[in-house]
């Protein structure tokens, strides 16, 4: 399957800040690719470089091998919803779309079609200044869809949408992929994307952490377990845990999680040390936890982790459970 979008060794420096750092990934047609990372990890900059709005310092970002500015009818091939895009407040929704349609040589009839598609048909004649955040987001989506593009780039598209809007957006994105279109959608929340994406590209500090399929990531998450413990004797518990090779994280003044631990191991351990417990919960890892550990635990100084390894090889999260009950 050829790549609809190819980002190759892309870098962008703002002074001494490396917003994007030697980033490479591909987006395949007919699939939804989640572009995930915490805020400030270089997602928006990458997308803006793809769309020719920001110049790269090095590397390439292309659609079927061509840069955005080199596309003949860019709006007919690539549709984009970007953050910090705005509308003239006194312009009517339909006039905004008409100006794009006329400039891109798209039939004016598409204006009403796309307005209906995003559910703004009734407010077509309203000035955008009176639009809510969610309506603006829908209007942006309508703008992206005007040219019926085969590639969609959506930067945090669910911002400002109500729960129904988010559900609608998910259905919409899946529908686009079913038509054979390539969709690249960024988010700082994996949980928001779990039901939508096929592939994930995870970035942190402008660098690729990993590119894989959601299925692979989920299978990894399923194997990650932890034990959440609430105890009034947390300090003593931590001192005890220090003595053995286990990884744990303190969540609150009276709560911590031991990675990979099981109740079968911890029960006797607590009894042996006469620890008072208030709560003991055996947790299976969620995708979100995997995502957080990938993006927070990622150490940019470790070159092994700069290349996109499949999950399992060189897991960059907290150290897995090493010592068992025996």
């Amino acid at each position, binding site marked *: 399957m050829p790549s609809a979008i190819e980002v190759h060794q892309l870098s962008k420096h703002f002074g001494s800040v490396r917003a994007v750092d030697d980033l490479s990934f591909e987006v395949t047609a007919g699939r939804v690719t989640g572009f995930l990372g915490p805020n400030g990890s270089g997602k*928006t*900059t990458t997308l*803006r470089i793809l*769309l*020719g*709005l*920001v*110049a790269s310092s090095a590397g390439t970002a292309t659609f079927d091998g061509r840069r*955005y*500015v080199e*596309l003949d009818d*860019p*709006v007919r091939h690539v549709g*984009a919803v*970007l953050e*910090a*895009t*705005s*509308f*003239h*407040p*006194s*312009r*009517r929704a339909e*006039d*905004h779309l*008409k*100006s*794009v349609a*006329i*400039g*891109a*040589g798209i039939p004016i009839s598409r204006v009403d079609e796309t307005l209906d598609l995003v559910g703004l048909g009734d407010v077509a004649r309203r000035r955008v200044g009176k639009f809510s955040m969610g309506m603006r987001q829908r209007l942006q989506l309508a*703008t992206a869809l005007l040219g019926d593009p085969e590639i969609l780039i959506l930067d945090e598209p669910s911002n400002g949408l109500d729960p129904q809007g988010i559900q609608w957006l998910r259905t919409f994105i899946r529908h686009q992929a079913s038509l054979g279109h390539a969709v690249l959608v960024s988010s700082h929340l994996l949980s928001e994307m779990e039901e939508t994406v096929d592939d994930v590209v995870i970035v942190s500090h402008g660098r690729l952490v990993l590119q894989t399929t959601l299925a692979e990531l989920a299978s990894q998450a399923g194997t990650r377990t932890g034990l959440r413990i609430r105890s009034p004797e947390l300090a003593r518990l931590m001192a005890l845990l220090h003595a053995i090779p286990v990884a744990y994280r303190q969540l609150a003044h009276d709560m911590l999680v031991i990675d990979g631990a099981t109740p079968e191991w911890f029960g006797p351990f607590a009894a042996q040390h006469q620890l008072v417990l208030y709560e003991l919960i055996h947790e299976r890892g969620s995708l979100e936890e995997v995502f957080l550990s990938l993006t927070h635990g990622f150490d940019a100084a470790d070159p092994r982790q700069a290349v996109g390894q499949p999950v399992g090889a060189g897991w960059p999260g907290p150290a897995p459970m090493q010592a068992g009950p025996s």
Partner: protein
Amino acid sequence: MIAIIRSEWLKMRTTAVPWVLAGIALIINGLLILVYFVGHGDGGGGGGNGGGNGSFGYPNYPHTTQQLRNLLGSGFAGYILALLLGVLCVTTEFRHKTVTTSLLVAPRRPQFIGGKLITSAILGAGLAVLMLVGTLLGGGLTLSVQGGSFSDLLRQVPAVAPGMILVFALFAILGVGVGAVLTNQVAAIIVSLGWFIILEGILVSLFHSLEKWLPTGAAAAASNLTRGMGSRFGLFNWWEGALLMLGYGLFFAALGSVILNQRDIS
């Protein structure tokens, strides 16, 4: 490019900018006609007497060819509105962050500026036509009431209109150039008005020989397109002045394109 220009026109007319400027143009029209007739009545005839003749047997309303041309061309001062039109055509995009969408439609930035140059030139010319029509109607009516001849005024159109239309279009082009360099709307407006209302006048009064090289001098020369007055007051010929004005506009537009090309839109 035609698609970009049509899109620009739609973007312009769906904001208040051209309509407010057109409204101001008509108000200026009325005021200038008023000033012209009041001034003429005082100076020409030493107190009019109900549309008859002045004290020396001359009519106290505009009647010579030059007077009629001056009346018809009284809207010339509206060039500053054409300039603002060009400035706003660019800076509005940055002020309201619509530039992102515009650059997704026309990703080549010189093309984006080019579309604005042509659109603004056309709208600037339109503003001149509006002011000419306004003067013809307002001035012509006043003239008729005072006993003058509307058709005499109408006959001056071929002499006055082409130069004025040309100059307005050139000022709109210059405005786009200024806006392309100074994308901050407030800064661009202050610099444009500051230059044309204050700085240029001071420069000319200090160094008179500079006048023909400055935009207003070049524009004044260009306005002689069909009046055939040649180089009055040591100005350039009309075509030299027009080229100089166009040069100023295109220079700033090119500079703005280069700056915009380097600039990250985020």
